[in-house]
């Protein structure tokens, strides 16, 4: 079995006249955290949705954990999980009920212990009996992350998972994600508009703009490529410069 967790080649998605993702090729290795950056509308969510089988690519090929998406969708998704700031757990169920449902959906063994462990990890154990809809957005983000780790996924796809966390909690969550990556070797693909997040968490970064991959490398390589001090400056440069391409690096 290959050591690549994701191999995407020539991914393309066209919605009517919009090219949301264009010739996107990348790899994600085992135990790696890969950041997916880019301005609004760059195609990040579309790319993640294709990896999850929620959107069918117009062209291109996706292999996850050595299997083909969407052909082996079920076998792949059993070993992955997903969390997004824009996707919620049912608001009228209690936190523990929601986690129980998803534990059973993912066929988690000894789910009570697993749920207790995760609630502790994300410091939300006191909320277990609360109705999910009554949680603050930071609390529900952490409960969503509990759901995302239930099945001990080998690949975690996170679409802006820290969008609503305060700086303290964002820091804790980054540490936790780093921790599970280190302990369990989980691979992650991570989109965020928080450059701090990205610099601290990601081993490597893909920079997208208008559907295309315009730069790829470690955060320091990317900064060096664009001749900027921070990823934030790189980001602004890309967003304002339209099709601007990294010095020396062709798109």
């Amino acid at each position, binding site marked *: 079995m290959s050591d690549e967790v994701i191999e995407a080649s020539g991914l393309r998605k066209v919605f009517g006249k919009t090219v949301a993702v264009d010739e996107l090729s990348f790899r994600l290795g085992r135990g790696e955290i890969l950041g997916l950056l880019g301005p609004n509308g760059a195609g990040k969510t579309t790319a993640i949705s294709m990896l999850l089988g929620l959107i069918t690519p117009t062209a291109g090929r996706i292999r996850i954990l050595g299997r083909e998406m969407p052909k082996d969708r079920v076998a792949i998704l059993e070993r992955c999980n997903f969390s997004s700031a824009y996707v919620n*757990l049912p608001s009228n169920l209690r936190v523990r009920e929601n986690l129980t449902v998803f534990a059973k*959906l993912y066929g988690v063994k000894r789910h009570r212990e697993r749920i207790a462990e995760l609630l502790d990890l994300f410091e939300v154990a006191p909320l277990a009996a609360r109705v999910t809809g009554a949680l603050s957005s930071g609390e529900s983000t952490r409960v969503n992350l509990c759901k995302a780790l239930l099945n001990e996924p080998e690949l975690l796809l996170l679409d802006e998972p820290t969008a609503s966390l305060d700086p303290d909690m964002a820091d804790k969550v980054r540490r936790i994600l780093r921790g599970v990556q280190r302990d369990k070797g989980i691979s992650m693909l991570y989109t965020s508009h928080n450059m701090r997040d990205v610099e601290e968490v990601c081993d490597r970064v893909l920079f997208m703009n208008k559907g295309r991959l315009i730069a790829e490398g470690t955060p320091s390589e990317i900064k060096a490529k664009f001749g900027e001090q921070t990823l934030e400056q790189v980001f602004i440069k890309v967003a304002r410069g339209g099709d601007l391409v990294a010095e020396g690096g062709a798109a």
Partner: protein
Amino acid sequence: MSMHWGRVFALVLRYTYLYRRSVPRLIEMVFWPVMDLLVWGFVTAYLLQLRPGAPGLVTFLMGAMIFWDIMYRAQQGLSLSFLEDLWSRNILNLFASPIRLREFLAATFLVGLFKVLVIGTVLAAMAMGMYHFNLFDVGPALVPFFINLVVMGWAVGMVTVAIILRFGIGAEALAWAIPFFLQPLAAVFYPVAVLPGWLQPIALSIPATHVFEGMRHVLQGGDFPTVMLVHASLLNLVYLAGGAAFFVFMFRSARNRGHLAKLGMQ
């Protein structure tokens, strides 16, 4: 066609929690049919006063109401389950999990069946206690009638969900509207014969029409409604296959056009 029952029951558990948690949903589930039954019960009582000696002809109004609700609830089991997941923005959590479409359908079918059994029992008991209408007077055809109505409800439910998938939450009213669009055609409270000639073939192409015709036939003292049941069952096979094909087609198209992903994040 492999089916992972653990995942089906995980989803059933999700809806069970929902109904256990939500008193308004529980009340809503029985409130409308009970109100309907009260109205039709008193209408029947009144008609019996006007025309004593013709009970067979009028009591079927109550049977019709109960039968209609069976079809309606089976459809709602599917379409409301889907809407609940849309409203709570949970749909992508579900479809990013290893659930298969047929497992999702099986779970919502079971939820529909459960609702039908609960409401059917409540209504039958009320009709018996308050109006001396015994649903079991329908006789041995009761079970095949019931099955046909539930199956048609599932087929209509699949079409409803497929359309909501395409047009989004803006189309949610269809979950309630589609069954009532069919109601005048399905000859629920009157025989097909009273419909204008050009409408009759359309009415006869609906499985439920044959169930309602069969029910009136039996309640008027007719024998076992074999022909009507055969018609209803054959049409239902077509409806079920058509509904499932339409559902799968629309789901595929939603994955292509990105509607599934967009719908889940709105």
